[in-house]
């Protein structure tokens, strides 16, 4: 019995001790949290963003009161998380990476903190007009661009020389087809690498620009989907033919990052994708072919109109309590100083491209980045307005439509595109299905009466 009481008293004292311990710890944590504000940043796992995390100690050194918590994820997953969080006012993230699709739509809804009253050091007029326009609604900027991109052709000089081929400055898709055929030599090297991974920001975006080049548009001026029209059919069957015959194995699973890996391993003779890839394929540490790459404009077919335009940008969801700190971080990450910091640590060729005029007038950048002039030319040529394609269209955006329904339309279409590329469906069937689901979605959204 005595032993029993002893154990009980021991337990009670232990419990008191634990309670004290917990309260001290929580008090300590609380006082700590008063001093350090923690910003949760969610971002796409592209190379430039990952590099920013590595350089973030520069920011925390300058702003000792702010802690940073980075979360990186793949593009499709990022969209899912960010959209869920912002529509439910979840407040899980203080800073989110979004693109040209989301920024104007969410800005209009008042879900994002407008980028007003920016410090003069940010120099908003220095931002490339196409990028600034794409991230604004009614002239108000809602997300600060981290990098911007158009698309162009990257090709292997050594392989072209070996076969006695020359890449013109402005190739056509017909020429690209001939080159791919001549250079295809698997498993060592594939004629061409193009996106095939389903997703509206992956294959649907890329195929959208191919379709633009062939004179197509997503919908006509009455919002009737055009995917079964002659221009789309021509463009899409061309793409499927090209990638099935002269592309790498597993192309239906390859997105931007997968193709980047293949190109850097020397497995692609040509790659047509976002201009931002250029700094990675010419990077000595990442690429095995860094000194054998050259660039040309994105191919055209019946028109040169309708070239890719995209920007990954950083925004603050409305309603956050850490707005001031979040803005401070954004001003740091998208500033001229950050660009110089990257140049200092990693060389000028690796600075985030496509955001600022000052970058493209800087002789250091122009001399060190062989792709700089072409990137700028491609970005200036891209026109997201309603007259940006061969035939006029009722939506804003080049490779996407800036309407909430496009997420569903593009995702469904991307799924059908990859099925056709994998040979599981005929080109006509895939386009038919994509067209049908686009029609349903637009009808549900009351675009089509």
């Amino acid at each position, binding site marked *: 019995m005595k032993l029993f009481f002893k154990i009980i008293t021991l337990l009670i004292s232990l419990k008191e001790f634990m309670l004290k311990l917990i309260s001290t710890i929580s008090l300590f944590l609380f006082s700590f949290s008063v001093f350090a504000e923690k910003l949760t940043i969610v971002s796409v796992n592209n190379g430039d963003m990952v590099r920013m995390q590595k350089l973030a100690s520069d920011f925390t050194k300058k702003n000792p009161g702010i802690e940073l918590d980075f979360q990186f994820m793949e593009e499709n997953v990022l969209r899912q998380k960010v959209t869920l969080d912002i529509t439910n006012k979840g407040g899980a993230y203080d800073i989110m990476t979004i693109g040209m699709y989301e920024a104007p739509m969410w800005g209009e809804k008042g879900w994002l903190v407008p980028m007003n009253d920016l410090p003069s050091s940010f120099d908003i007029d220095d931002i490339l007009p196409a990028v600034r326009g794409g991230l604004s609604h009614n002239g108000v900027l809602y997300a600060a661009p981290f990098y911007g991109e158009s698309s162009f052709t990257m090709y292997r000089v050594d392989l072209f020389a070996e076969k006695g081929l020359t890449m013109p400055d402005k190739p056509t898709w017909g020429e690209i087809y001939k080159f791919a055929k001549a250079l295809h030599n698997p498993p060592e090297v594939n004629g061409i690498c193009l996106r095939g991974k389903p997703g509206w920001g992956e294959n649907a975006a890329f195929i959208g620009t191919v379709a633009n080049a062939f004179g197509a548009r997503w919908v006509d001026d009455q919002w009737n989907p055009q995917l079964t029209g002659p221009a789309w059919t021509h463009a899409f069957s061309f793409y499927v033919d090209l990638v099935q015959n002269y592309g790498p194995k*597993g192309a239906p699973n390859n997105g931007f990052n997968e193709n980047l890996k293949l190109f850097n391993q020397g497995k692609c003779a040509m790659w047509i994708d976002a201009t931002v890839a250029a700094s990675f394929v010419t990077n000595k540490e990442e690429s095995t072919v860094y000194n054998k790459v050259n660039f040309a404009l994105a191919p055209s077919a019946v028109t040169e109109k309708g070239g890719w335009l995209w920007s990954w940008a950083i925004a603050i969801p409305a309603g956050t309590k850490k707005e001031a700190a979040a803005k401070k971080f954004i001003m740091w990450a998208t500033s001229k100083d950050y660009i110089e910091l990257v140049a200092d640590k990693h060389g000028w060729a690796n600075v985030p491209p496509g955001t600022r005029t000052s970058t493209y007038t800087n002789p250091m950048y122009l001399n060190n980045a062989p792709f700089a002039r072409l990137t700028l030319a491609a970005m200036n040529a891209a026109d997201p307005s309603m007259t940006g394609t061969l035939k006029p269209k009722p939506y804003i955006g080049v490779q996407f439509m800036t309407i*909430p329904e496009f997420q569903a339309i593009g995702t*469904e279409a991307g799924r059908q595109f990859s*099925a056709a590329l994998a040979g*599981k469906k005929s080109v006509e069937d895939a386009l038919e299905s994509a067209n049908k689901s686009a029609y349903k979605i637009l009808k549900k*959204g*009351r675009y089509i009466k």
Partner: protein
Amino acid sequence: MQLTRVSYGKIILSPTIIILLLWILVPLALTVYYSFQSYNMLDGGSTGYIGWMNYEFFIFDEAFYDAIINTFITVLSLLLFTVFFGFIFASLLNSDIFLSGLVKVLYISPFLVIPTVSALLWKNLMMDPINGFIAFLLNLFNYEGIDFLNEYPLASIITMLSWTWIPFATLLILTSLKSIDKQMIESAKIDGANTFQISIFIILPNIIRSINVIILLETIFFLAVFAEISIATNGGPGTETTNLPFLIFQKGLQNFDVGESSAGGLIAVLLANFVAIFLINLLRKNI
């Protein structure tokens, strides 16, 4: 007034029952409500009543039929594989081979691997057409790597799931094999029964109960396969590996169409109930 035993019991139980009902009914009611709304998440919520349109579009979607067929193929073929190979491997493990303890532990381990991990493992280490192990073996003999996940997508998913679930079936069958009295088999042999007769008349009746349990549990799991599909193929290419749960996920969290996703969810609840009734009847007869 005196409370009877029964009504007293009802009062005591009522909090639990009310909580349980709320737990089930509130989400169900919300799902029913959303299924009649035009609800695009990117539009910031519901934009009004649209009648049966969500149901109409979900049921007449080609992907819905593909999903039903894929679910059906997955469940049936996996049940067949796991029970068949489970029986064979269990019989092998039942005989006392060298280091049988270690072999058993190794053999069971795939079942303990988390689904997402096993999907990643198969996708990147085994089935990748350029860097995968199978491609490596094929390259050794000068063949090109096979793009399993695009050329044979559903078969690849079934392979991954079999790898995980055959050990489970084996384990259950092995335990009932162990419980068969050896004397029974010996006496059958003395009476002149051959191996086939022994398997059919002695072994099979003894393991039929564990096979029933396997069928019940595995059907429940295979109807809701998600991780492997999401990681390895994302339902694709096209709708080749989309099953019903994945289709509902796609509508809701990839297309951000909450209305159609809710309608799909309710249809899936109906279908799952049919299967459940069928299975319960089947088991009632056998156990």
